[in-house]
């Protein structure tokens, strides 16, 4: 049973970490332009040297 004392805080901590990451990405505007994000991968970068 003492294992629970470690495992439960770890489980909840990981959940909170995921939630924090989600809220951060939301605040950062990563869901503002979903169609654009899908298209951007097709843009050829022209390296200007």
């Amino acid at each position, binding site marked *: 049973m003492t294992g629970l004392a470690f495992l439960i805080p770890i489980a909840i901590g990981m*959940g909170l970490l995921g*939630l924090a990451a989600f809220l951060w990405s*939301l605040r950062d505007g990563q*869901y503002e332009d*979903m169609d654009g994000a899908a*298209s*951007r991968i097709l843009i050829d970068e022209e390296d200007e040297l």
Partner: protein
Amino acid sequence: MNAPAPILADSPALISTRFTVPGMRCAGCIGKIERELPKVDGIIAARANFSAKRVAIQHDPALDETALTAALLAIGFEAQPVADNPLGVETQERKRLIRALGVAGFGMMNVMLLSVSIWSGADGPTRDLFHWLSALIAMPVIAYSGRPFFASAWMALSHRRTNMDVPISIGVILAAALSLYETITGGGHAYFESAVMLLFFLLAGRVLDAVMRDRTRAGIGALLGRMGKSASVIGPDGSTRRVAAGELEPGMLVLVAAGEALAADGAVEDGVSAIDNAMLTGESAPEPVAPGAIVHAGAINLSAPLRVRLTAVADDTAIAEIARLMDEAGQSRSHYVRIADRASRLYAPVVHSLAALAFVGWMIAGAGWHQSLTIAIAVLIITCPCAMGLAVPAAQVVASGALLRRGLLVKDGSALERLAECDIALFDKTGTLTLGTPRADITALGAEARSVALGLAQASRHPLSQGLAAALLHEGVVPAVIADVREVSGAGLSGRWNGVEVALERPDDAAQSLAARLRIGETAQTIAFADPLRADAAATLAALRAEGIEASILSGDRAAPVDAAARELGLAATAEVSPQAKLAALEALKAQGRRPLMVGDGLNDGPALAAAHASIAPGTASDASQQAADAVFIGEKLMPVALAVRVAKATMRIVRQNFGFSIIYNVLAVPLALFGLVTPLIAAIAMSVSSLVVVANSLRLARSTK
């Protein structure tokens, strides 16, 4: 590698301006805008938002909007500055809902983890510990994620009404309170996971609803903004300055450039040109104007600059009068009660009296008040309209996504519900049944004539020239090089080609307004123009008839062209109808108990669009009409109108099936709850299975537009 261009927001010398760029269609466009714009002097960075079709430009304050628009045009994109706050109320609301959904998702996963251990047999102090942990996670999650429902339910109750959120809120709050009591007293059953899971599923429905609204608003927003919102006022010293439409005053002298829309009513003082009044009257032929002519806000100046002395501004213009009519006509729509709320008006009293009966029944049967209350709350939890909350938004989001791919933007779920109920259709002619732009008949022209005609036509903004150029470019004609092109307003274009005098001019026969004469040296040819019906107009009307909807024409255009279109399509028609009369016709139909669908594009259709039971406007329609309409279709085809009605009806069928399923599920589950057999495990399984079935059923709509 695809990192966004750095935006130097901290530099105080820079300002940011936003533009809508409707022409942004592919990855190449994003790349081009973000790569090419910063090469212009004064522009530091550009960032495109593809979903909203917007570009944010960081630039030197020395560059004004006109210069930036020109820079965008130089790389091939038409753009309009966006005046309003880019982060609108709707986006804020969607973000709040997504945050609430994220929190509910976190809570659901962790509480479920603990609940599964309890269901697997944890008991004694372990169970109590897990209950306490669940409470610790669930209570703040419910308080945060439940707010949208609690607020809406409170709003409804304080207006002495009920809606879907009232039974939801009561169920969630009672489940949480009972679970907390069980936890404190060391009882066996806590329903935290049910309460949190219910919130998660319902929030998913709300988020879908909000995403659908935002997506359409962005699409329509990109089409808006082409009307006169400001004017160049000529000062006493001859200098001009831009003044916003709201700050214009009667008596000001304004300069209206070719291609510009008028921002207020006035009389022409100087200049000869033609104006396009199609948005105001529905007439497709341009109207020539000379000094002394009266012009109205919303008209577009076509060929030469005009000086206009303003007579009426802002709220006194002809447009503002139409806007007032639209406001009043739109009032009736706000009384429409959506199907989910109609269902809950029947559902909530039944469920709440069942729960009350269960409590009273078990008290009479001799169970203690604690057990009776537990059972009554179990009834509320098991009947809490989880599947019902998803029944409507899931179906509507799938349907609107399918319609979006076919070029129809439906504004919200209520629009789909009203579209399904329409039983008669009224069409405007110009711009709705027809394309609204004159198309040239070029079959009689030889290769040489075509090339010369294109060379001339390209130089002008006149709708006939543009129609001719479009038709010729479509045929792959290469323009001839014409020297000394001159445009004389009201007369036409002239120039020199290989030393020969060439001209594209108004025919002598002035009655034939929709024609042009091409002259090369001494030979002359007349090119006829027509405003053709959309290619699939007849097929669309037939498809509507198959749905039981008869159509007729209600147009502001002259009787002759309206009758011609009506004969061709075999419809009844009324011509030369004023905006007020259109509104009256709609009101008369509604008074007879009909549910009219209005399809129109002009400002003159605005009040009728707002008053109709449901309305659709083409993407070329005036701003006001697009805002008044429930749906907007893009492209040259009319078929999306018939498709919208068909898909709306299919959606309502699926919604009714979903409701039917929820009712069957309740009929099976309620007896279990009434006899005290529902445990938290059964509640959790029942809730997720019913939600999944409803979502799966709704997904069938994705194929409905095929």
